[in-house]
């Protein structure tokens, strides 16, 4: 259904082309060859009521003609054009207002302020369409704000774009925009009309167009935002009653008396959409409690400390559990050696026996470090040669240069490795030779060999390793984990409800009966384990160290503690404004419905969302969310008895289930047309409003609001 909100039927200004003049007969002929169903006559600073009536009459069976005028606006020292379009029912009054402002004025020089315009036309419930951006002469944002502020319903202000592309861009940025032909030559109209905008929903009156303006920011279809309709064939009541339903990517209301099968239809729609690849389910009010949905008991709740960046310390814990004391050299060995008198002359000459063992660890570590670096460079060399993309992206000369440098680095590292290898192995060999010589000398002379070391190195290394491990474990268990707060839902005026999961790592002193362990481990071994760790940390440099480690090993159930995650405890509660909160059943319904609607889905199937909910919550929270989903092009299918939902959401589609004389009928319609038609034409049409008033609960005010818009 095409709409043209900017049409000239007369040459008014000196600069207007003669080809703007059109007779009623010619107009009639042209319009009948187009798909334009709504057209607003907007001549420059001029309204001809007689011509308007003549044209309207000639095309009344194919097209609505709305009275309008294109005014020259003088505002902030700026001249711009503004279309004012009125309800055809008020054409006479509109004409009178036009005469009032234009009396004695030359259309070529006429100009009016925004305030004067609004003062003249506001009570006629007009639409204001301002030339915008590249549609010149245009009103700026400041002037548009002035206009919006002066009129009672700012949604009646639309920005006129120069063409469909501009309008699409404006709409995608949240501006309500439209464009018209601004016809210069009526001979071109038939062709031009093909590019005119389509309304998103067919409307058959000025009032319905206003309703559409109130519903959507985008009144017209654009490439970016287009309402589509699925023809869905389902058989919710068996093969005997197959129904084809139009489901829009907007709000689809399913209503009717209790027991007419609305839930079955929702389930059937869910099955249909699942069968074609969507994942849908029917949300049933009061089906579950919020405590279960948010898993307040934490059944199967599982997290690891590593999820929060905390070291699991798996290797460290294992190392502590398996730590053993390292032997040291006894003084007796020194006494035995030095108490004997060496008489063997050869043995006296063998100076090698005086050499002490040299620590090999440093040399071995240095060898490992150089090996690691060498390996990294080799990996990079392989990456460079294997990756064809590198050659595509980087100049060959640069790569050749890099390859050359790499080879030189590798050569250098290989030399270093050779040296480190020699160093490490020569030390090892030397230590072995010294040991063998000492053993042989002992055998020959009977004098016990001299100890090769005090044992301090290994003893100290063992303690250092334990200290390092304990330090890491202590750091981990003393880490505070910030609570996880999941948004649960909006409780209206009370505030927003969050599901808060607090996590604690048992640090030896944590006691709270409200907390449960995350892993399958009892609290007692957790606490004992943490306390033993602290005890070990205090005894790293004492002779009791291994007694403390033994105490840890003897904790009942310690075998299940393998990482810091095994020390985790959690507590999950709802919080409102930072305080613990226990939602009532009604609030549970609020939260679950809110949660369902705020999940990002393509299709929402909701059964009786109003159950246990107050009107305020439905109006203030739920209806706006549903409208937003519709704007985003989601399919929202709601079975409801609530007028607030069925009416205030201004659905594209209402599906009514009627039981009459033992027969069931499915009828569809919408508030814009105000009719309900039987989908298989087996029953006469019904009045949407009448049926809605009769069937839907509450909501007199909802209909009152709708009435204001419709005028019926």
């Amino acid at each position, binding site marked *: 259904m095409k709409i043209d909100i900017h049409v000239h039927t007369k040459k008014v200004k000196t600069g207007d082309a003669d080809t703007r003049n059109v007779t009623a007969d010619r107009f009639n002929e042209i319009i009948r060859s187009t798909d334009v169903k709504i057209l607003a006559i907007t001549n420059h600073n001029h309204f001809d009521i007689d011509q308007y009536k003549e044209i309207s009459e000639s095309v009344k069976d194919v097209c609505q003609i709305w009275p309008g005028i294109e005014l020259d606006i003088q505002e902030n020292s700026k001249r711009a054009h503004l279309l004012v379009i009125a309800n055809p029912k008020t054409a006479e009054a509109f004409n009178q207002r036009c005469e009032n402002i234009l009396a004695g004025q030359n259309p070529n020089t006429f100009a009016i302020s925004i305030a004067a315009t609004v003062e003249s036309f506001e009570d006629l419930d007009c639409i204001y369409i301002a030339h915008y951006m590249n549609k010149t002469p245009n009103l700026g944002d400041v002037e548009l704000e002035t206009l919006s502020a002066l009129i009672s319903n700012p949604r009646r202000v639309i920005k006129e774009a120069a063409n469909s592309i501009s309008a699409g861009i404006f709409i995608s940025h949240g501006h309500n925009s439209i464009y018209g032909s601004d016809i210069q030559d009526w001979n071109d109209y038939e062709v031009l009309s093909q590019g005119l905008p389509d309304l998103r929903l067919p409307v058959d009156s000025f009032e319905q167009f206003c309703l559409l303006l109130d519903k959507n920011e985008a009144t017209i279809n654009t490439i970016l935002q287009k309402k589509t309709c699925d023809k869905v064939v389902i058989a919710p009541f068996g093969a005997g009653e197959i129904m084809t339903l139009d489901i829009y990517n907007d709000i689809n209301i399913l209503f009717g008396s209790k027991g007419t099968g609305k839930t079955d239809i929702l389930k059937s729609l869910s099955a249909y959409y699942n069968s074609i690849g969507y994942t849908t389910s029917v949300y049933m009010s009061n089906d579950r409690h919020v405590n279960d949905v948010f898993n307040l008991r934490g059944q199967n709740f599982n997290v690891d*400390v590593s*999820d*929060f*960046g*905390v070291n699991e310390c798996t290797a460290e814990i294992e190392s502590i559990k398996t730590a053993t004391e390292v*032997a*040291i050299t*006894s*003084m*007796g060995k*020194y*006494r035995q050696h*030095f*108490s004997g008198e060496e008489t063997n002359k050869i043995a006296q000459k063998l100076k090698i026996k005086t050499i*002490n063992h*040299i*620590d090999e*660890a*440093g040399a071995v570590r240095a060898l490992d470090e150089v090996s690691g670096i060498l390996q990294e460079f080799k990996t990079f060399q392989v990456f460079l040669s294997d990756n064809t993309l590198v050659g595509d992206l980087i100049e060959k000369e640069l790569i050749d240069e890099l390859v050359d440098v790499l080879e030189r680095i590798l050569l250098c590292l290989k030399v270093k490795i050779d040296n480190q290898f020699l160093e490490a192995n020569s030390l090892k060999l030397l230590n072995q030779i010294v040991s063998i010589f000492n053993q042989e000398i002992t055998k020959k002379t009977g004098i016990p060999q*001299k*100890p*090769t*070391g*005090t*044992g*301090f*190195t290994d*003893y*100290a*290394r063992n*303690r*250092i390793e334990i*200290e*390092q491990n304990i*330090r890491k474990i*202590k*750091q981990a268990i*003393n*880490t*505070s*984990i*910030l609570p*996880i707060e999941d948004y649960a839902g909006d409780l209206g005026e009370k505030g927003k409800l969050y599901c808060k999961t607090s996590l604690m790592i048992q640090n030896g002193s944590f006691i709270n009966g409200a907390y449960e362990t995350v892993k399958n481990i009892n609290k007692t071994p957790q606490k004992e384990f943490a306390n033993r760790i602290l005890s070990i940390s205090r005894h790293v*440099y*004492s*002779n009791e160290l291994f007694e403390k480690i033994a105490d840890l090993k003897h904790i009942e159930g310690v075998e299940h503690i393998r990482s810091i995650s095994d020390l985790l405890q959690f507590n999950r509660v709802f919080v409102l404004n930072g305080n613990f909160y226990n939602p009532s059943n009604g609030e549970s319904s609020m939260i679950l419905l809110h949660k369902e609607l705020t999940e990002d889905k393509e299709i929402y199937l909701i059964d009786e969302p109003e159950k246990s909910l107050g009107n305020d919550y439905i109006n203030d929270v739920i209806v706006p969310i549903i409208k937003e989903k519709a704007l985003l092009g989601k399919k929202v299918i709601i079975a409801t008895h609530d007028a607030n939902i069925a009416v205030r959401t201004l659905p594209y589609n209402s599906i009514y289930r009627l039981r009459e004389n033992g027969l069931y009928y499915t009828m569809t319609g919408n508030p814009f047309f105000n009719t309900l038609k039987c989908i298989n034409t087996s029953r006469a049409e019904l009045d949407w409003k009448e049926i809605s008033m009769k069937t839907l609960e509450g909501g007199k005010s909802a209909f009152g609001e709708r009435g204001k818009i419709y005028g019926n």
Partner: protein
Amino acid sequence: METKTATIKRQTDQSKLALQGHTGSFEIILTEDNPNNIKSVFNLILKDLKNGLIQFELTDDKEDMYYHICKEYIKQLNAEMVAIYEELERYDLVAEEKEDSANNQVARPE
């Protein structure tokens, strides 16, 4: 590196090697096989090394068996202390006050 004194205490019941560290003196009994005594001394030396590398120098005027034992023992111990001090430095265990500085952190979900 600091050089500290080592002396031999010859007594009738037991003789000891007395080592002077940064924070106090440690005594190794020379006349008994007492691993716990040596471990205690090693523990003290290890803690002392965190305050800086030390090397012991034997001061004694007799050339008896105790002198030879202690001379050899100190020679070996000095070499071992150098290796361990390097490791303490490597693992950032030298300064005691740093030990708990990283505790009480706050972790957030990643």
